[in-house]
């Protein structure tokens, strides 16, 4: 006997109590299904969004001794490790920056990330320009845009010298919408 005919034979269709019971069971089923869904989904969503809400870390990383950098007009490429690499990152934990020593204590450093869409810019010492291979962005040696589509200058990075060791302050990838912080400029 199917439930409908059962209901018919017992006359439950017209019974107010049964209506209430059915309405309660409908709500119960929908409510519990929602709860099951929430239990399954919410921890996962929080897990996935972890990297988004995690507090950004900025740490100083060594990039060589003071003697490795000559005082001249040329930038050299330095590589350093990300602020918080996961143990299996391998080579992907590396980041790069263009660094130039201006005087005994003064340095100029730029992130290699093009401010247009993020390709790696190259320093060309002859023309004294940074050029981007992707869409033709060009920057002067002070990081300002010389030509092409980049809307903002290269991101300046901070350098300090501690006991003869040169260190760079790591940053998240400079995104074009990320406002430059006073401290980084």
């Amino acid at each position: 006997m199917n439930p409908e005919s059962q209901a018919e034979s017992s006359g439950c269709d017209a019974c107010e109590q049964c209506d209430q019971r059915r309405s309660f069971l409908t709500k119960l089923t929908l409510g519990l299904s929602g709860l099951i869904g929430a239990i399954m989904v919410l921890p996962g969503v929080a897990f996935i969004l972890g990297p988004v809400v995690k507090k950004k870390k900025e740490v100083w990383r060594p990039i060589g001794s003071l003697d490795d950098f000559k005082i001249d007009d040329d930038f050299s490429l330095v590589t350093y490790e990300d602020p918080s690499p996961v143990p299996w990152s391998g080579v992907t934990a590396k980041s790069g920056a263009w660094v130039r020593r201006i005087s005994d204590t003064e340095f100029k450093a730029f992130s290699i990330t093009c401010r247009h869409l993020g390709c790696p810019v190259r320093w060309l010492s002859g023309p004294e320009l940074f050029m981007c291979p992707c869409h033709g962005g060009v920057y002067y040696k002070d990081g300002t845009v010389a030509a092409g589509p980049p809307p903002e200058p290269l991101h300046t990075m901070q350098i300090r010298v501690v006991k003869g060791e040169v260190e760079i302050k790591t940053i998240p990838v400079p995104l074009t919408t990320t406002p430059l912080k006073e401290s980084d400029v």
Partner: protein
Amino acid sequence: MKRIKKIWHWIDDRSGYSDYVVPLMKHIVPRDARWWYVFGSATLTAFFVQVLTGICLAMVYVPGGDEAYMSLKYITETAFMGHIIRGMHYYGASAMVMLTVMHMMQVYLHATYKYPREMNWMSGVVLMMVVLGMAFSGQLLRWDDNGVWSVMVASEMAARVPFIGSWLSHFIFGGETVGGSTLTRFYVFHVFIMPAIIFAGIGLHMVLLLRHGVSEMPNVDQPVDPATYREDYEARLKKTGVPFWPDAMWRDVVFSTVVVVGILLCAIFFGAPSLSTPPNPSNIHSNPMPDWYFWWYFTILSTLPSNLETWIILGSPVLGFLILLLVPFFSNKGHRAPSKRPWSVGIIVFGVTSFVLLTIYGYYKPWSPDFGVTPLPESVIGVSEGPVFEGGNLVYKKGCLYCHHIDGHGGHRGPVLSNIGQKLTRQDLTIRIMNGGYNMPSFAGSMSSEDLSHIVDFLLTRKEEDSTEPAQ
């Protein structure tokens, strides 16, 4: 024999094969469709190639920072049949993208999206978007330097989204930079999420195909009238239709065979795409380039006026998707025949021509400086000493050749300088070099007056052979 029959009967009865599967296979389809309708089934076949080769690749591929690159190298260079499987997956992806688009163009040209098949079209549009997502994420899983920088470009694009841009970027990175968590995200999208959507989408597409029937070839005498279409269609089908299996299906199978054999032959003769250098985000010698089916978009991004850029980067995919999705709502009745819808033929011709031209342009990418240039040979400079000779060498040293072309040497970003001595005076050239100009940097801060004068001396000698005009 009797026993086998009995067993088959049991299987048939319990599984419902004769009751459900056979009628599906033998459903009646119009007899006039012929070769026009083979693209959809071939797309499905290409998808199966992707699923099967993808499963094989996933048995060895390790989605980790360093290991992904190493495991792909192993698959390509060492594993038995590895380069064929990887090659099939690569060419299968190209086939799937191409066939999806061809299928869509055919459906658009024949206005099959009209009543009652609006939802068939819409599910197809969603499927196409996911197929493009698969193509893009698959390119990243190659996880060489190109893969790393493609993620970078993707997340920089995401960063342009108002308010939540940087969150989105960090979500894509799985952190604040490219790193160990980045690849696994794309792996999950590519291997679990998007294939699941495609399976579900294909299921829906098939159910709708059976529900509304295979459309007939467009006929100028049979415009679609929603009030009578279903009845007319059923009546016509009853009169002239043929069972899908085997009367119509053989063409699908023949074309799918051509596709699969083509994929295999490409994999054997051209092999898997080569991997560039390891995924080191500090490697500045990378020259990121998407796979060929995205070159048109690469061109658009490179040639956009910068004030429109953010709008187009963010708006065009959304707008493109919405326009495609809503095509049936612009017109879902009336003529289906291309001869009565000339603008649809125009749109297809325009679309295909733009795609081809933008793709060719994207391949040559003339907007990029050419980092591989070499110094000008003496034969081009024309003298072997003196200021002109110095100037000829300086156009290389000072980077002019990265963007300018001189007698077969140099890049293509800026104007050709082979005849510049005829067009500009000494003063013009000096001002242009010192101040820069549209898309040309100023060299005032990086060039001595002696170098400048040598370069100008050299440029003034750049004239056509038979030119008699004296340089000023």
